[in-house]
């Protein structure tokens, strides 16, 4: 399952950091952060619930870039 989320992030490098953090989160098959369109596309792994995974993704992203915002 794939879902797109709107995000707010200031710099291209921060977007890269967020992407790496999201990819390492459990339950995420693949994640792409598009700085240009300010969007995060998350592909969830089989058997994981999107809401719970996204909470974890949010936390992980805040850790690497406190200024970022993910609109769930």
């Amino acid at each position, binding site marked *: 399952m794939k879902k*797109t989320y709107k995000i*707010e992030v*200031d*710099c*291209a*490098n921060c*977007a*890269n950091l967020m*992407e790496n953090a999201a990819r390492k989160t459990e339950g995420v098959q693949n994640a*792409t*952060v*598009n*700085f*240009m*369109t*300010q*969007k995060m*596309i998350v592909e969830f792994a089989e058997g994981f619930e999107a809401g719970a995974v996204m909470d974890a993704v949010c936390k992980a992203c805040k*850790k*690497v870039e*406190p*200024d970022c915002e993910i609109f769930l």
Partner: protein
Amino acid sequence: MTKKQKKMLLRILLAAGILIVLQLLPAERFDRLDKYLFSSAGRWIRLACYLADYLIIGHDILKKAFKGICNGQVFDENFLMAVATVGAMALAIRENGDYLEAIAVMLFYQIGEWFQSYAVGKSRKNISDLMDIRPDYANVEQGEKLIRVDPDEVEVGSIIVVQPGEKAPIDGVIVQGSSSLNTSALTGESLPREVTVGDEVLSGCISMTGVLKLRTTKEFGESTASKILDLVENASSRKSKSEDFISRFARVYTPFVCFSALLLAILPPILRLVVWQLPAAWSVWIYRALTFLVISCPCALVISIPLSFFAGIGGASREGVLVKGSNYLESLSRTKYVVFDKTGTLTKGVFEVNGIHHAAIDNEELLRYAAYAESASSHPISKSLKKAYGKEIDRTRVSQIQEIGGNGVTAVVDGVQVAAGNDKLMQRLGISYHECHQAGTIVHVAVDGAYVGHIVISDVVKPYAEKVVPSLKKAGVEKTVMLTGDSHKVAQQVAAALGIDEVYSELLPANKVEKVEELLTRTSKTAKLAFVGDGINDAPVLSRADIGIAMGAMGSDAAIEAADIVLMDDDPMKIAKAIQISRKCLRVVFQNIVLALSVKAICLTFGALGIGGMYLAIFADVGVMILAVLNAIRCLFVR
């Protein structure tokens, strides 16, 4: 400006204002307060004022640095700034001296960050506005009224209305009306295209002049606009080597400078004490170490390099070239071999009358006889003859049409006997004819038993195709190769006309992969090979080549999926443009790396020697960052 930026700007202005006021009040002024309160009260009040100002401008940096330490991400720019300014603050407190430095450093850092965020946001918006082709609604007629519906709900085959100034939401064919279409969002082509009933309209095009009624041919999700947006948004962020280098570099670099700074603070004073028996001068060396820290902040690199690639991809998409990741931009800049598929890439892939030779009568006249003689046939050849003739055909003027299978036709047109067909027909009728040196399908025409010339019908090369090879060579490509399934003669002729270096003809799709693999072994390690193609059978070749370039508008979905770069308007001239963009982008990246590292190296030496102080440091950090960001944004603009 976003809310965040506005807030930050206020904080910067407020802190700068307070700082100026405090600077106008010298320390002695505060010392007078001692009389009214307790001894050294002035000193504490002065400190409190400066501290408040410091916190106004820097509290978020301190918080981030603290959070970073808690989260195990110790060495980032927030940490460097926090340590440097807190250190400078501490030194100033000890001496009741110059608090200006710590606050000014923080202030300049914040100004730099703000400026960077503003500039990046602005250019980001610039690009995303251009790429804004997502249609929000579709107009559907219901009775007399037009209602707006979600384009997702429109079924294939329904009629939608596109009003002047609106984007076509779904691909369709015009059933009523005519207009000029602005296709620039899709193709980067600024010239409007005139369309009328029967023409296809791709979603994302803007109708400029007239009201159009379209019969939709695709669902919204399958329409061009949706597909392109999907492509842009999913452009999986495959990182270029330069970006990887920077993130690896930062991981090693930051701890390295932190420990160097620590050494700079501790080692010289101890040496002075032990070896030279001099006073330690701790504060001097701690100050130098702090300066060293500020200088070494790697922001300029960390921020500007992803930004350069981002701007390069953005600038390319504005030109109608979609690049799927920054690694492809990097590979593209090193392209030395360009391999073309012929049909659909260099040529239009449709048959047209391409020449009339040895005509004994007017060309127009010759074409008229041929078109009339072939008028009853539905063969592609006769279609292209009729198209070239261009006028309405009056069937009553033709009689006694006789088709000779595999040879051609004979007929009576306007009372004269006309024969039109290939060599065999001429031989059969015993008419002597001129062989054609040109490749393609030849239609010989004889009127009243006398040879009057022949018409060449072949696939035509795209307009400007002959300029493609020179422009590629100018962009630094060493060799151009053409692969085709077409006959040897046709391939040779097209290659000669376009100036292509090597030709391989009569290839099956599997042979094309083999050929590309063979060419890959011939290229050196740093040189890259790009393959340009459009058809479904090109998909394996596209993925096999270092860089696969697909023709977007006409190309098949499979090819677009397999490709790394998509040319939206099918114009092969854009390849050279894309290479130029990538070169420029990589040049900017290189400039930024050299600029940042060399300025930092010089300033670090000065800082360690105690020349320049914090102000030099802040230039080396923020100044270089701003320069690098401005340079990176240059990638957006394409000549």
